[in-house]
Structures are given as C-alpha cells and as structure tokens.
C-alpha cells in the first residue's frame, strides 16, 4: 500500500495511456501536438525507449527533456534528436514506407474509419470551419497503421461524413488499393473514452475490441450513430498503473492537454 493515494485516472489520461501501449518499441511514429504527442513521449519514456518520433515540421527523433513541444515545427521537436530536415523530407519518408504508426483525430468518423477535420455542414457554405487536412490525410494515406484518438458521441460517430478529409477504408475492403493508396495501410485502432476499436479483417468495419472499466457494449452503441460491430470476446482494458500515470502527469504539469 502506498501512503499517498494516486488520484484516479481521468478519461483523457486513460485514452492517452491506451494509445501509448499501442506503440511498439523500435518503430517510427508520426506525431502531432496534443494527445498524440503525450502518448508518443509517454511510450518513449516507459516501454518503448527506441521509438522514433517524426514531426511533419521536419524534426526526427527528438527526445525532449523538459516541457513538450506545443508546435510540430518548434526547436524542441529535434532536441537531442537524430536530424532535422524539411516537410518534403519527412513526408517523403512516410510515402516511401518508413513510418509504421501515425496519429489522427477528427470532428467526425464513420464506420470505415474515414475522418472529417474540414467542415461541419456544406463545404461551400460551412456551418463550422475546421482546420482542414493539415498533415492528417497524408498520415492516413501513407503510414502503415493509423491510430485515431477522439472522444466518442453520436455527433462524432456518424453514418455519413460532412466531408471526407482523410481516408479510412472508404466503403469497404479493397477500396484503398483501388483508389491507388499504398498497399497494407489504413486505420488500425480507434481509441475513445469508452473503449478501443479495431477494423474487421474481412469487412473493414470498425469493431469494438476492448472497453474501459465501467463501460458496456450498450454505452458504445448509444454513443454512435452507426451500428457498432463487436468482437467475439470484448476484454476490459487494464487500468493505468501508478507508474504509467505518474509518467504521464509529469509530461504535462501545466495541464495543457490534461485539463
């Protein structure tokens, strides 16, 4: 028993730690600022010391010691790193197949893992204008496996996207290849506050694999506008260990992401 009771993990912290666990050692990951960066640096500092962080600003392999980068092109992205190049260099790395993992988020996702980060409403007269693709559609197209980190509700898990910014599996198996995207790429995991989803080998439909403690399959369904496919055995995600949680909180002492 520890004398100081560790404060319970929040939903955001649980999502980030689940994302960190999804990154194997000695692989390369394309990161953006915010939750993806926290997950990647968390992995680097806990179970994956050989993880190579690649930023679209050009930084490769930075291992920041103090605060975390707040911008994908700032000098911290290559502090204690391997090299720093250009947008052309790091995007070419992805297109040529050097990058295994990429992180994405979105305002809307559909059952095939297609994402919208461009507009809510009609593109010509948007109700809400969002940032656009940025590097998102590049990551979704070119990295081997993409991990999508987003909160889940019926407005975000939609039947039909308002705009297809970044490719998932379009509308089924084989379509990515038909469109000309690199072979054997696509969404790998979707991590929400409710659970972790994969994509069915045959149908390419988003499929619930694991639930966070306290959530049920019905919760996952209630928070989605499309029917949720469920794996034959859904397991419960292991609670963050004290060590994992301490490592994560140390990365964001000012609560920039962990609000």
């Amino acid at each position, binding site marked *: 028993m520890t004398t100081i009771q560790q404060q319970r993990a929040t939903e955001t912290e649980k999502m980030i730690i689940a994302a960190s666990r999804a990154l194997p050692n000695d692989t390369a990951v394309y990161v953006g600022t915010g939750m993806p960066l926290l997950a990647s640096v968390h992995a680097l500092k806990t179970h994956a010391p050989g993880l190579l962080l690649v930023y679209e*600003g050009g930084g490769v392999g930075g291992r920041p010691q103090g605060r975390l980068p707040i*911008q994908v092109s700032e000098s911290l992205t*290559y502090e204690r790193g391997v090299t*720093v190049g*250009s947008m052309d260099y790091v995007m070419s790395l992805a297109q040529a197949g050097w990058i295994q993992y990429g992180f994405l988020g979105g305002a809307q996702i559909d059952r095939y893992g297609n994402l919208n980060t461009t507009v809510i409403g009609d593109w010509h007269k948007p109700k809400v204008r969002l940032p656009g693709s940025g590097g998102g559609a590049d990551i979704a197209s070119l990295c081997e496996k993409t991990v999508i980190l987003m909160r889940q509700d019926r407005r975000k898990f939609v039947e039909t996207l308002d705009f297809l910014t970044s*490719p998932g599996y379009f509308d089924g198996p084989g379509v990515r290849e038909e469109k*000309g*995207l690199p072979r054997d790429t696509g969404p790998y995991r979707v991590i929400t506050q409710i659970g972790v989803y994969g994509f069915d080998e045959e149908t390419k439909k988003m499929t619930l694999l694991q639930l966070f403690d306290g959530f049920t399959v019905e919760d996952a369904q209630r928070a989605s506008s499309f029917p949720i496919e469920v794996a034959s055995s859904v397991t419960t995600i292991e609670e963050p260990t004290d060590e994992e949680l301490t490592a994560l909180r140390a990365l964001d002492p000012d609560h*920039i992401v962990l609000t």
Partner: protein
Amino acid sequence: MTNETITGWLHPDEMRAYRQRHKSFAKRDKVTTLKEAVSRGVKEGDYIVFGGMGSVRNPLAAVYEIIRQRIGRLTVGTKGSQHDWQILAAAGLVSEAEVSYGFADEVRGLARPARSAVEEGRMKVISEITNAGFQWRFTAAMKGLSFYPTRSALGTDTLHYSGSKTIIDPFTEEPVELLPACYPDVALIHVHRADRYGNCQIDGNVAEDIEIAHAAKFVLVTAEEIVRDEVLEATPALTKLPYFIVDAVVEAPFGAHPNQTPGAYSFDEAHWQTWLDASLTDEGVEEYLQQYIYGTTDHYDYLEKIGGLRVLRQLQHIENGVAPYPQVSKRREVK
C-alpha cells in the same frame, strides 16, 4: 471548386520567361526598409505564402507591415500556416484562401477571427490540400514542372477540392494524383541571417522555404541579422537560399515575434495570451490591431510596444534554457 481554374498555376515556360525578365545574377545590395519592400513587392489581389511553419519562424514583422499599409483582397496559401495568415484575415485583408491547415493554433485552440470570416462569407476557401500536397505543389514549381505526382490522399474530398488530377500511372498502371505546380506572387520568409545580396541561412527546420522561395515571383526576406559578406562566404553549406532568387532584404530583429525563431528566441506566451483574449470578439481584434499594428509606426516601434528589450531578452533566455518556460497560453472564454 472544380478544376476549371487552378490558382497559382502557370505553364513552366511562362515562369522561365518571367525569371529571365525579373531575376538577375548581378550582385546588388538589396537591403531596404520593410515599408519600401512591402509597398514594392505586395500588391492588392496578390497570391501570397509565408515561410516557416505553424507558429515557428514566421515573417510576422512583414505581415504587420502589410496590415499597416492595408494591402487587401489577398489570396493566401495556408501551407501549415497559422498566426501569419490568420492575423491578416483578422484584419480583413484576405479574400480567398487555399487551405492545407488553417483556422487554428494547434494546442492553443481554434482561431475565431479567420473561422468566422469564412462562416460569415467574408472570406472564401477556394481549395483544400494536404500539407504534403502543398509542399509538393511548390516542389513542382521549383523543379520547373507543371505537376508533381503523389499517392497521398487519393479518393478523398480533400483532393476533390484541390485542383489536382488523378491519372493512371503508366508504370504501375494504378491511379496516381498529379498536384498542380504553385507559383505564388509573393513569398515572405524570415531567416536567421542574410547578407546584403540576399544569400540566407536558416538554422534548424527549413519547412518548405527553399521551394517557396524558388517558386515565388517576388521574394521578400526578413532576417534577424544582416551580416558581412565574409560570414556567409565562409559557410556556404549552411546557405539555404541563394541571392539570385531574392528580391528584397530587410533586417528585422525578433521579426517572428510573438512566435519562435529556433535557437534565437522562444514564443512570447504573455503576448500570445493577449492576442488570444483579444481574438474572442471583433472589438477585441480591432483594439489589438489598433494598439500593436496600426498604432505603431514600424517594427521597432512595435518591439517597444510589446515590452522592449526587457521582454525580448527574456525570450532569448527561455529559448536558450537560461530561464524556465512560462505557462503555455490557450484560448479561453471571456469572463
């Protein structure tokens, strides 16, 4: 957008002819004032792009001078751009945008003034593209080609609205996307050091500055420091932009404030918070522009207004690890 018009595209031979007429290998002293360089190089209705990326090494001193001179109806290529184009949009000077990333400042939150300009119809997004896609549009231009091929984003709405074209790759016999070359009218680029002829060195990340500088018709460089000719002659391997592509050179110390210039100075978090708070209302934006831009005569006056040497030296200390990093500013709601 459909593909009937592609913004920024030219036949490569037109651009070859342009260069023959307007660029020169004569080593001329191109050092001038920001006021003169902006009024000579930036015209109403121009297509404009910015160097650096996100909120790092952006040519903000030059952007503020455009705002002072109220040069409007601009088209902007937002190639991973943030505060540079968003403050121009906040000042009402942007009428059209080609967007790869815009309308937000990463972890600081969404940029209200630029968003509401689109949502209320005051500014039009004319195309979408990805960050790699914009990079490679400039790569095509730098290489003297009409397009650059990519496998990224095939089949997406992003490319549907990009002006690019899908063809069958004659080698793989599979689809490939051709991104149209982009030749902006103006590139504004902030660098660490330049000589009087326009040779430029950039420390660290170059983003896509080499490509945009070779692609643009008018290249305006602001430099933290203008150095003696011998400094760059001694280290040519570090020179990223050669003099013959550059049209004007202006010394602008802290020319990326309130953003970072890697290795030189850090983000000004306190000033960022001032802007983020001001940006929540149209009145706040107007007051901010009045106080820091319209109300300052030039870049040096601006630097005094934001706190002068005391603040600027502290930003150098933060970047160099001498002083601790302050609280990161974020968009917050009005009380």
